């Protein structure tokens, strides 16, 4: 039970040590949870405003100043709606499926370092933990599709399962390159290996891996142009066709939290996370010091890319998605891992020191 700050011990001296740790980490997790949910809520607003302006519309601007309170209006509407449970569905699994989708998405944030030493759980195998949780997230979708007992939902679930399993492999392979360069599975160590200004980021040495990772991330979160899981023109709404009210909203929370997570991880693995890009330059202190604001800026850029993709590209056809995942991305990552191996053997690159 290490890692509990001293002020907790002075504040709650009457409790046993392990209860103090549980209380402290519970509060920390709650704060993190609320911030992630708030970010997610404003992301939905940002999405509608950004896509609106890409399409030369205004987007929601009526609720609150500039539409800022729109997410809360949406949540209120969804909470007041009835949750309809289909009579022929498997009720227990039908209700638990949205939770199985959202819990891994939120739990993954435990190991993400938001600022120097700013991870809730600074564990050694952080990257493996993230991979394990993101692969567990597929259960929510599959069970929702199966428990609904509807052909449309089931087809959506089958598509989701095949797509997520396929792109997980490409994602994992892309991260092998990052692990090779960093020599650690700890996210904080991975960031620290990239210190020394914007030219030290892993991105420059593994551009193909970055492209594969980010596109696989888009496919993994079932976002456009890879959103065949909920292809409206084919299977209505896919796995969540029978969900209403908050049960439906929870699936969307999971999707948006996963988007934020993938953006954060892309900036951590390839763009130095909370490191300042101007490290070592003769600039004012706040520009060269590492901090949360750098991670936030990098993460926001990738989130913007998500919205940009959605407004730009038409939906992929299902067999083309599978081809891209298995026959294009996996060979690309394998070739680039061999190239990285050659870099290592001949001591080329920032890791040679």
């Amino acid at each position: 039970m290490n890692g509990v700050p001293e002020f907790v011990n002075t504040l709650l001296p009457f409790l046993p040590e392990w209860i103090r740790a549980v209380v402290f980490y519970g509060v920390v997790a709650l704060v993190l949870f609320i911030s992630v949910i708030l970010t997610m809520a404003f992301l939905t607003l940002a999405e509608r405003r950004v896509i609106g302006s890409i399409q030369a519309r205004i987007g929601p601007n009526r609720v609150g100043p500039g539409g800022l309170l729109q997410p809360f209006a949406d949540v209120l509407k969804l909470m007041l709606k009835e949750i309809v449970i289909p009579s022929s569905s498997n009720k227990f699994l039908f209700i638990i499926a949205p939770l199985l989708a959202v819990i891994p998405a939120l739990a993954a944030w435990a190991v993400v370092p938001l600022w120097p030493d700013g991870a809730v759980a600074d564990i050694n195998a952080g990257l493996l933990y993230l991979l394990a949780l993101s692969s567990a997230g597929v259960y929510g979708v599959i069970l929702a599709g199966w428990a609904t007992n509807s052909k449309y939902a089931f087809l959506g679930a089958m598509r989701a399962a095949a797509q997520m399993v396929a792109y997980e492999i490409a994602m994992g392979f892309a991260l092998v390159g990052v692990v090779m360069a960093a020599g650690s599975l700890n996210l904080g160590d991975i960031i620290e290996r990239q210190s020394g200004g914007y030219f030290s980021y892993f991105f420059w040495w593994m551009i193909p891996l970055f492209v594969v990772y980010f596109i696989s991330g888009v496919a993994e979160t079932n976002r456009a142009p890879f959103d065949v899981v909920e292809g409206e023109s084919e299977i209505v709404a896919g796995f969540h066709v029978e969900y209403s009210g908050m049960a439906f909203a929870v699936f969307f929370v999971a999707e948006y939290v996963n988007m934020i997570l993938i953006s954060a991880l892309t900036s951590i693995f390839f763009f130095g996370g909370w490191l300042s890009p101007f490290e070592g330059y003769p600039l004012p202190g706040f520009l060269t010091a590492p901090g949360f604001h750098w991670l936030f800026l990098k993460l926001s850029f990738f989130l913007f890319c998500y919205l940009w993709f959605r407004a730009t590209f038409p939906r992929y056809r299902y067999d083309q998605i599978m081809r891209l995942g298995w026959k294009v991305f996996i060979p690309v990552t394998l070739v680039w891992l061999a190239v990285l191996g050659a870099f290592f053997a001949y001591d080329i690159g920032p890791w040679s020191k």
Partner: protein
Amino acid sequence: MSITEILFYAFSGVLLVSAVGVITARNPVHAALFLVFSFFNSAVLWMLLEAEFLAIVLVLVYVGAVMVLFLFVVMMLDINVAQVKEGFTRYAPLGILIALIVVAEIGSVVWVKSLGQEVTPVTAIAAEPGYSNTGALGELLYTKYLYPFELAAVILLLAIVAAIVLTMRKRAGLKQQDIGAQVSVRAQDRVRIVKMPPVIEAGEKQS
């Protein structure tokens, strides 16, 4: 009782209940979900032993990939439970024998421990500061056990190739896409633009 012991007994209890659920559930999908649940619980038990790499990889490989595909198949098949249980009495003696062997194995480990022998001296190493289970495992795999490890990898690759070859059938008259041909297609291959001189019939007035 320390907090670790309480956690151990809680998770092993849930593990046993879900393991029983795997073989008693009537619905095969429920059985598969019970199996997923027991994988999670055994991962927690490994975590308590500070074998974090094994614990996370168990979730990553079995829960994240194997069981997803398993569920995929179980959901698509309409399994007739009565038909599956047909040979139960015939195979029961063999099953009981295997169960007895497993119980005997567990019993022998407990017996060795009761004699004061250390079966898994893992805690002594794990107590060192800066110990990384993943690093230690990787170092052993790539130095001491390199050849068995590589051999296992090659066998797995062979199994993957074999599985693909077995399921790849070429049917007559099967239409397939040729992506290369599709991408390299030119406008001239698709549309032929012909120029035809206008035919003006006799007696028709040109306007």
